[in-house]
């Protein structure tokens, strides 16, 4: 069994420990596992392959420089990287400095997905849930999530009251959670 094969069998926490010790092959394995989701999120937000690649590079370099920023007790690595990718992409979209430190991203409830098949099934389920949402709710959630619009901006764009926008966004997020918990 090659070193790469061994790495492929390791859990995320073991890979992060190896990265902490300066193991470059462990970093390559993390990239192989999660670059698709990191890049997909960045591309969906930014709509530009070059910009998405830059965000992806920036995120993996941050993990290499500071692997302790990831705390396994706060969520699984793939979900953590995906949220950071979304946040960094929104910052890039709005041409603003990063507003939240990666250490601030604390996750819970996200299921652990080991292989590509798991992740694919999972993504399909989330897309199904989003598709089943009322269109106004899904639209408010996507504008906040993928376009990084504030609730004030969404209210101005849609002509809806601020309170309604707030309620829709929160209800949309919690509906996803409930669907996964059930």
């Amino acid at each position, binding site marked *: 069994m090659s070193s790469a094969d061994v790495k492929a069998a390791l859990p995320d926490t073991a890979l992060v420990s190896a990265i902490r010790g300066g193991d470059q092959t462990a970093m390559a394995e993390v990239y192989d596992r999660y*670059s698709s*989701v990191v*890049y*997909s999120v960045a591309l969906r937000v930014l709509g530009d392959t070059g910009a998405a690649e830059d965000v992806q590079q920036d995120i993996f370099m941050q993990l290499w420089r500071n692997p302790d920023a990831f705390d396994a007790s706060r969520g699984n690595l793939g979900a953590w990287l995906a949220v950071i*990718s979304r946040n960094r992409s929104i910052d890039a979209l709005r041409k603003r400095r990063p507003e939240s430190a990666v250490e601030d991203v*604390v996750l819970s409830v996200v299921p652990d997905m080991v292989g590509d098949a798991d992740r694919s099934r999972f993504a399909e389920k989330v897309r199904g849930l989003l598709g089943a949402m009322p269109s106004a709710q899904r639209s408010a*959630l996507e504008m906040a999530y993928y376009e990084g619009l*504030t609730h004030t901006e969404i209210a101005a764009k849609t002509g809806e009251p601020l309170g309604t926008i*707030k309620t829709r966004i929160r209800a949309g997020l919690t509906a996803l959670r409930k669907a996964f918990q059930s």
Partner: protein
Amino acid sequence: MSAHEQFAEDLALHALGALQGEERIALLRHLDTCSECRQELAQLQGDMALMAMASSGPKPPQRSRQRLLDAIAKEPRTSPASDARSRFNWWAAFGWAAAAAMFLVVVQVRRENSLLRESVSNLAQMTGAQTVELANARRSLDALTAPETQIITLSTAKSPPRPQGKAFYLRDRNSLVFVAGNLPQLPPDKIYELWLFPPTGSPIAAGLFKPDAKGNATIVNPPGLPAGVEAKAFAVTLEPATGPHDAPRGTGVMQGGA
């Protein structure tokens, strides 16, 4: 709902980075002190991860993998020991600054403690004096009202014992103590009733009572006595046991003018 209602929607916006201005500042302040809302924020960020994981699209270009590997090869990880050395002076400087700040805080706290101790001492003295006064008042009241109090009626020789009563009325404080003795025992359907007679107007009911086996009875601050009423006289009547009554209609037992 697991989080505080007033912050629930702002938490969702904050998780998305969509909360700004004063609302964001207020929420950050609240998060510093509320573990329940921090937990809810983690849940919402988990919800965000669900959306992120649902994104699908083309895989990143092959060159980006090599670009990353080249970059990390140029930045070998520094050892924890060298990290510690590079941070050492900063931490030491921070430590001294913290110690100096702590010294100033201690001086201020000691000064405030001294003032507080002085206030506590004064309050303790006042409390002690009030406790003595209260004990004296309670002893006096006990002498008037306790069942074991010896009540000796003095009278001229050979005169038969007759019902007697004394009303101690302090109008300004709305306080009335009535002590009676030598009262005949009552049939079950009868009761004594004390009346306060103001200078004008109708008499006011001031309490129902039955004598003990020795014919003694007391009333202390009867409920319902109006405040500040001037008393011209007090009287006791024998009334039906279904009192209190709005006016004396029974037999007079004793009376006395103020």
